[in-house]
């Protein structure tokens, strides 16, 4: 186990490179899902607003 962590004295380099890669990839996955979810949420909001606007107001009925 120590041998793997130490990487023959190159441990800090190897593990920091893999660590940065993991962080960047996880962030990108999160960002991609958020990108789609945001688009959908904005559409639903716009749809809901339009629905309330479409309902006739009291004055229009009167």
């Amino acid at each position: 186990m120590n041998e793997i962590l130490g990487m023959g004295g190159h441990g800090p380099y190897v593990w920091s490179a893999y660590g940065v890669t993991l962080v960047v990839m996880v962030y990108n996955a999160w960002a991609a899902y958020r990108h789609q979810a945001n688009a959908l949420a904005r559409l639903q909001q716009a749809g809901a607003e339009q629905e309330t606007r479409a309902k006739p107001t009291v004055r229009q009925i009167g």
Partner: protein
Amino acid sequence: MNAVPIRRRLWRAFHRLGSPPYVYRLAGRLSPWLGVTSCVLLAVGAFWGLVLAPPDYLQGDSFRIIYIHVPSAYLSMGGYVLMAVAAAIGYIWRMKLAHGLAVCVAPLGAWFTALALVTGGIWGKPTWGTYWEWGDARLMFELLLLFLYIGYMVLRMSFDDREKADRVSALLAVVGVVNVPIIHYSVEWWTTLHQGPTLIREGGPSITMDMLIPLLIMLAGFSLFFGWLLCKRLQGEILRRESRTRWVRTLAAEAGA
């Protein structure tokens, strides 16, 4: 017998790729498979590369950075070519979906370019004795690639009109593609610090099988990962571009119910 000739069927399939609702559903169906497969490949490849592969006779264990550095660099260049081809198709055939694809590649490509530069720098310290060398051609052109991706995104932001942004940014994407072969051949044209090619070279890969197999697994894992995120981003981009169409409104209403 089905009377539709194969060529016409292929043509129809190609045309469907221009249809936003079809591509939206296709991306949605593909993404979970791409996500699971890429994560499995990345886990297997990383374990193989970090633990099972033997240390390099010259570089020791620091060579293990190759398993993330080479796939990142490959995606940074492959992503740019994909972006430029998509932008060119969008420009020539006025295909909005192709522009949308180019837009989705840009942030992903920029991140993998940054990753290639950072992991390369970390690898350079124990190998070359320095994180960064201004005189190295490969490093400079890879940095230029990052600026091209960022330039593409910033240029788009300067337009309010999406169609104008599509057309102008496509020109930048296409012109910048010249940089990709320069990056590839830079280590042969100018011999400075960066080592020569490992995989795509005359005489085949210069690496033993027990080091090569995890590299190929990681290349596949990174590519599928890129494809997975591209599918998700493309779905979001299609929703934004098609927000006024009936099918997107129905979809949003159904998702909200």
